């Protein structure tokens, strides 16, 4: 069975992790600068010696260090079986003993490893053919990207927000694209996200005299990091950290006021940060291509998320204006009207397609 690219990468990563972790005892087994005690006292039996290595301890270290990776890992795998998840990732130990036995020769062995005989290679090939298939990740297989259509609701209980929305909840709609970066385990994946939401509200019930309509319009591009844990093959929970910028414009239309100012406007670019957690459900994956390594399946789903959005406030004021004859003879100083707090509880719902 052919593995997709990301799956191979995951396998290689896991293999590398296992190799590093299992080589560590060998280093203690053969210290680079042995203490006087260790030079006088034979090393304690290790996994390598237990596996049948006949080389004395003082010479075993450089030999093991110079061995090819396959040769070095083979006896370790044989001596201390790796976890089940790691087993398929490591070539089967077809003939571990001869490989380690070969360097039983004096020191020059390290410079010229001995190739295994053909029978050994055939045995190894057979062993590889018999190995169990790689474990399927719980998320729809063969998918890297997720495209969301997002509807977020931010609960804004700030009084100032009331001038721009007759309800405390404002909707933000947009799209976002998730890309799986790595599967930490078959069930846990780390993904990056790029998204954009748009928000527009208005309210005509302004404080009497302030104006006729209050409008709020904002664009929110963002990036996010997401950790997803698939519980079963149709359900996952996730946690998400999101940072972005809000390009907000507040406007109060004041047509017809005697002071002649048509509108009060404030534009602000402010950062925001959000933390959230939620769950996703999806349909079984539909295979759309048997030949491609990835983007060959399609799944649909929905996600709900709750969290909190932290964002700086946007101030609105009557602007200060310098004298500018003949249009304006006298400089104007305007009062601050207040600031609209943009933080609030977040409830997000998205429909997504994963491919």
């Amino acid at each position, binding site marked *: 069975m052919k593995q997709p690219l990301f799956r191979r990468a995951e396998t290689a990563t896991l293999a590398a992790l296992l190799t590093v972790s299992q080589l560590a005892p060998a280093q203690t087994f053969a210290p680079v600068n042995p203490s006087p005690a260790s030079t006088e006292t034979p090393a304690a039996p290790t996994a390598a010696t237990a596996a049948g290595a006949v080389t004395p301890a003082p010479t075993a270290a450089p030999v093991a260090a110079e061995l090819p990776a396959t040769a070095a890992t083979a006896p370790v795998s044989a001596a201390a079986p790796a976890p089940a998840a790691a087993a398929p990732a490591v070539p089967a130990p077809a003939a571990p003993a001869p490989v380690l036995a070969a360097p039983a020769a004096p020191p020059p062995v390290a410079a010229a490893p001995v190739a295994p005989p053909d029978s050994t290679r055939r045995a190894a090939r057979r062993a590889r053919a018999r190995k169990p298939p790689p474990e399927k990740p719980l998320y729809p297989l063969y998918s890297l990207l997720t495209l969301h259509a997002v509807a977020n609701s931010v609960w804004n209980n700030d009084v100032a927000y009331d001038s721009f929305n007759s309800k*405390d909840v404002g909707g933000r709609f947009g799209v976002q694209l998730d890309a799986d970066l790595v599967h930490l385990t078959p069930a846990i994946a780390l993904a990056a996200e790029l998204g954009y939401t748009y928000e527009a509200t208005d309210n005509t*019930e302004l404080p009497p005299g302030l104006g006729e309509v209050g409008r709020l319009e904002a664009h929110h591009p963002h990036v996010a990091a997401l950790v997803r844990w698939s519980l079963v093959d149709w359900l996952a929970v996730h946690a998400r950290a999101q940072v972005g910028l809000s390009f907000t414009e507040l406007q109060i239309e004041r047509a017809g006021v005697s002071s002649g100012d048509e509108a009060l406007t404030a534009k602000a670019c402010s950062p925001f940060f959000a933390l959230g957690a939620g769950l996703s459900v999806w349909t079984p994956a539909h295979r759309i291509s048997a030949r491609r390594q990835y983007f060959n399946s399609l799944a649909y789903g929905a996600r709900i998320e709750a969290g909190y959005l932290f964002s700086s406030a946007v101030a609105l004021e009557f602007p200060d204006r310098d004298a500018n004859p003949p249009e304006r003879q006298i*400089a104007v100083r305007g*009062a601050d009207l207040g600031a609209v707090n943009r933080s609030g509880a977040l409830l997000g719902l998205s429909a997504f397609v994963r491919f």
Partner: protein
Amino acid sequence: MAPSFVRCLPRLHLKGLGACLSLALFAGCGDVEPHTPLVLSEPVALDEHLVWLDASNQRALVLDVAGADPQPHVTSIDLKGVPGTTQRQLAHNALLSLTANPDSDDADLVVLTSSGVKTRYALGTQFDTLTQSADGNFAIAHFSEAGASTKNASLLFNPNEIAIVDLTRTGNSAVTKRTLRSFGTAPRLVAFSPKMQLAGEERQLAVVLFGSQIALLDLNYPDRPEYTIELSRGASITLSQVRFSAEDQKIYLLANGSNDVYVLRLLPAGGNRENDFEPSLNQLGADAAPQDMVVFEGSLGSRLLVASGTRAEIVEASSSRVTQIPLSTRADRILLFHGTSPFDDADEPRALLFAVGQSSVSFLDLEEAEERTTRNLETLAVPGGIQQLIPLNDNLVLIPQTSGGLTILNLEERTASPIQARLGLAAIQPSLATGRLWATSTGSKALGYIDVDNLHPGEVRLDYEIQRLFVLDKAKRVVAVHSAPEGLVSILNANDPEDLEQATTLQGFFFEGILDR
């Protein structure tokens, strides 16, 4: 192939999620509470501040317009009641405001300064009218005639209830509540006498005018019973004016529907009265209905000058002698002044007699007028017609013309200097400190001024239409209030109004922080 129940689950979840989101969006949304609109009074100037009273939010808004760097910031003062009748406390830098508790019949009289509520007097009744003495030390809260007829919020209502407030004191003892005796009518006007010697003691009286009766109250002893005097049987007359002669301890009264001048002489009372003075009524007949009167002190003693339309009458109350002086031009108002005349350098009492709408005025030299009569009379033409009369410094009088201009009348030189105006002048503010008259017109952005010394006119155009005009003598500032719901004023240097670089417009101070409220 997944089991069928597994394939159903996502669908069920989606429905559930949709329901949750809908619940959050619609059921959980908090509705916005409506804002309370500002219901603002006309602004009042207090030395370096402008004050507005906000009836809907039961507060006063104070704007500092005289600072070196004025800011669009108002200080809010909680009045703890809905402000009603409000007026400047005479001879004091404070406001007097009757505030009502909207949840009960309680009411207070609040003395308000620019820094906060100075004193609060509990009145217990929601009066709608306030009258204060010239020195601002006494105030009487009572019901107006209109209030007495329309007051229907309470089940029981006493239109003759009043509250006497000694503004020089604090606490409950400063307020005396009482009900005036009446012959079936409600109070119409309240007047305060100057301080006068009565029964060996300097004291002040309050005179409450009903339709045809008066009540005399001794403010030194507000707990003592009042004198109630009926001047005419029946309801054929309506008392309209009251004047005092402190020298002679007399009170003069005029009434609509009567040609008589009513004179009350205040005499020491007999030993069996709780009050130590008592009034004695005298009635002086005149040929025509008197419309205005003043008391003056001449070399021969105290006299009463009465304007009766086509004639002036000088009344000597002690002898009931009346001297009639025919007028060549109609007059129903009198302005008393002391000064010289073009023919006499002596500083004597003189009178200007005039009527609104007339184009001429009469000067009457009061000294020896009873003997010289019309020889002491001089008529002067005033172009444009008289709209009102505003006394200025140095015996100058400002006369806004009915035709829209201004006339500066010099009472000593007896000259009338017309100042033409393109538009009808709506707000005219004389300022002794700046030596200028400031004027503006309805719907105009132009702020005009006249140097009183040389009558040189000047003008500066502001950016917004001027609604009200204030001249702050102490701060040497001119403040133009523009009509804008958010609050809009322009502040100019009164000494150099044409230098607009020194001017500032403040905008939006009524809505300061409104988004956060």
